């Protein structure tokens, strides 16, 4: 047994609970960091990272280690991995409209491309994934399909999170219709709506 796995086994043995790497995936601005922050604040009392309306705010993988959940007697300890949003295109000009100057926008675009590569590399290294989707957008995008296809190929358990249900134009049922094979939890990370249900499903499906 490799030393890393042995240490993880020891930790699990002595803590009496399972520890997993839980990746938060999705397109830019789906609300991944807002979801990660809610989870981290609820269970360890501090956020994971900064949120912004400007796309690609998260450009490196942000971690919150040893987040322990205990729901209905089911215990789960996880390393929460907030991934950069995965996209097929990055145009620095898109950032100009948010008030960044050309140099800042180009730098952000460069970092965003590296973040996308990093998030993709991590796809093979998570034990489970929350795939966050903006419920006010069309869920049937190639990015979502590619993320889910790769997780499924590796038999990595997935929970779909229909975020932003506080928006009047949100249609979380479209996510259920597009991907009927996955459990879907409807939430608003901004308002903190339905997180109890999310924790139930996480501890139930990933325990």
């Amino acid at each position: 047994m490799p030393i890393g796995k042995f240490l993880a086994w020891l930790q699990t043995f002595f803590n009496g609970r399972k520890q997993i790497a839980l990746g938060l995936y999705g397109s830019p601005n789906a609300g991944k960091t807002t979801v990660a922050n809610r989870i981290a604040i609820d269970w360890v009392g501090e956020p994971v990272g900064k949120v912004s309306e400007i796309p690609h705010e998260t450009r490196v993988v942000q971690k919150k280690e040893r987040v322990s959940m205990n729901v209905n007697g089911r215990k789960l300890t996880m390393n929460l991995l907030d991934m950069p949003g995965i996209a097929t295109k990055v145009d620095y000009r898109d950032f100009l409209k948010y008030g960044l100057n050309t140099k800042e926008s180009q730098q952000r675009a460069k970092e965003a491309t590296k973040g996308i590569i990093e998030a993709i590399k991590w796809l093979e290294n998570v034990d489970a994934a929350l795939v966050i989707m903006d419920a006010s957008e069309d869920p049937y995008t190639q990015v979502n399909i590619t993320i889910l296809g790769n997780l499924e190929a590796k038999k990595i358990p997935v929970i779909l999170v229909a975020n932003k249900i506080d928006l009047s134009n949100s249609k979380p049922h479209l996510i259920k219709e597009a991907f009927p094979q996955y459990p879907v939890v409807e939430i608003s990370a901004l308002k903190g709506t339905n997180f109890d249900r999310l924790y139930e499903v996480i501890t139930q499906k990933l325990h």
Partner: protein
Amino acid sequence: MADICIEFISTKTLARHSGDKLDYLLGNIRDNKIVVLEDPLNSNEEKELIKETMKYVDSKFTGIEISTLGGEDNGRGSVLIGMLGGKRAGLTVIGPSRLIRQMKKDPNAIHLFARSR
């Protein structure tokens, strides 16, 4: 108004580029072509293509739009089809994002909106 070039790439041509498939596709896309693949990419190839694409993104080449219809990997069945020289049903459309304004997908169709420069 500039012309838009759409290149339809056969399974046979892609097979000839099996060792450098992604480079071959990206070369065409960076040459401002929309490519339609007779043999659809699988999820892993799409993932690798996005990763490779990100290495080339700059102010002129801003990335790709991609959509695959069908082409799901059905495990041993698709391996057998491949061994018998067949192809998976479906197609993949890829193009430069500066050229493709929008690509929308439903389970049975791809809607591509391009703009000429």
